[in-house]
């Protein structure tokens, strides 16, 4: 089947792959890929430039959700928001980093499934609240954390927000993705009820929760082995010799003011 499909625009894909592999600056890679794709599709120069310009203006809504909360978040951080989040979580005895993130994952996925995707997010929830709470829960149990442990906890906090959002929102009937799928199939002559698509998303949504939760459970075990070595801060620990097995016997955690 040698139809007239022009394969040259795939150069853009190759530029992306090569650029990321060679670790060029991603901004530069994407700009070059856009220019290369445009020329490969035989666009003249001014068409390439205006495709880039109009595309960029049409997508202005994307950074809104990251940039708008920064003034509030920054101001609250100046007045100790992250420190407060850590103090608050250290008062909850049963909180381990893994369990805390499991709760966040659950809430994030359920609320996204109900269409409330605005309840989370990296700029407004993960950076100011979830990540500091996770670090705080780990510090309460294991004392000072190494940078490697700290970064791993933060990455997991961000991952939980993503997994909860992605695999929750697609079982919300009014979500754009379902509308897109139903519309596309209709154009192909196949009629599907949006509700059925939503229902068939549920097994995967459940699997996503179980897999991520299992990894969070393992994260707690990993922390007990790797962060427990430094010994928890003296005082609030009734069982200092038990540091390696904290996670298995999690109840007695002493009085954390």
């Amino acid at each position, binding site marked *: 089947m040698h139809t007239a499909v022009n394969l040259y625009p795939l150069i853009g894909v190759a530029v992306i792959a090569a650029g990321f592999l060679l670790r060029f600056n*991603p901004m530069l890679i994407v700009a070059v890929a856009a220019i290369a794709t445009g020329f490969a599709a035989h*666009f003249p120069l001014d068409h390439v430039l205006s495709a880039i310009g109009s595309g960029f203006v049409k997508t202005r809504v994307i950074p809104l959700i990251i940039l*708008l909360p920064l003034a509030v*978040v920054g101001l609250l951080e100046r007045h100790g928001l992250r420190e407060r989040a850590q103090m608050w979580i250290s008062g909850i005895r049963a909180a381990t980093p893994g369990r805390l993130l499991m709760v966040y994952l659950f809430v994030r996925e359920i609320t996204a499934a109900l269409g409330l995707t605005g*309840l989370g997010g990296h700029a407004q929830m993960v950076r100011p609240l979830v990540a500091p709470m996770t670090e705080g829960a780990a510090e309460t149990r294991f004392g000072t954390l190494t940078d490697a442990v700290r970064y791993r906890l*933060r990455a997991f*906090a961000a991952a939980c927000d993503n997994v909860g959002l992605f695999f929750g929102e697609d079982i919300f009937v009014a979500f754009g993705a379902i509308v897109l799928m139903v519309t596309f199939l209709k154009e192909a002559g196949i009629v599907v009820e949006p509700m059925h698509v939503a229902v068939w998303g549920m097994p995967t949504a459940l699997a996503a929760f179980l897999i991520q939760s299992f990894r969070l459970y393992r994260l707690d075990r990993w922390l007990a082995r790797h962060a427990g070595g430094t010994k928890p801060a003296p005082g609030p620990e009734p069982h200092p010799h038990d540091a390696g097995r904290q996670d298995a016997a999690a109840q007695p955690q002493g009085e954390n003011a």
Partner: protein
Amino acid sequence: MIVSLNAFFWLLGILLFVIGGIIVSDRAHPKRFLAGGFWIVYGVIFLAGDRLPTDVVGVLVIAMAVVAGIGGVVGAKPNMPSEDARRTSAKRLGNTLFLPALTIPLVTVVGTLLAPRLVFGGVALIDPKNATLASFGIGCVVALIFACLLTRDSVGQSVKEARRLVDALSWAVVLPQLLGMLGLVFADAGVGKAVAHLITAYINLDYRLLAVAVYCAGMAIFTIIMGNGFAAFPVMTGGVAVPVLIGVFHGNPAPIAAIGMFSGYCGTLLTPMAANYNIVPAALLELPNKYGVIRAQVPTAIALLIVNIVLLNAFM
């Protein structure tokens, strides 16, 4: 309508313009003209992007990419009170500090739910087509006022704090939008058609499990390339699912669509192209490795992709 997205584009444009101005006039900043210029140009695109000729905007965008590419968008040393001062303040203000932060999601949700009812004399108070985002913007403004009252600090200080965070995020905050633009250019140039052509021409789809695996893995891989499951869905469903899974194997379209899209989301967890989910958080959380979040997601994504293939083969 009274509150539309344009209001927040202008607000953001003004904020970025002021931040750029602060950076340009900051003599302690290592590259104040490049970095400040970057944010001023970005602000101009928010303020006047829809009025400038599109090829002029294209030139501005390429200029921003070049400044980022030569390492021009660096931050100054952050100016924060000491940890002791922040702890004292945290103790003094207590849990009320959480309230402004929680105001943003609260107002977003309430605004989204109420938007269809807030119509006065035929004029909607909140733009009904963008109710969630407009409510989110209102939430940010309300939260800022609340935070200023609570901490007895000024809006000016909050702009300085926004500048501190923008400095830390650097160009990563622009990348998702740039990728969105690339997706549009790809669609314009017919990249999707070319990929579907290659897959169907070179892979034998006579075995049911193989066809299911090609569809799910293809959704994931194409999403990795495009950074977006929505872009992958028409290509893979039109190229593989409709002719083969439905046409040859008579599969049920509802699970095919649902699980296919979720397979694409497994790809979203793996790709730097989905910058707003993977690269921006790494910058926000100040991780030294910009792929740190992706790394934490790899096992979940791969396990879930295998589960999807098994589920789709069982249920379709």
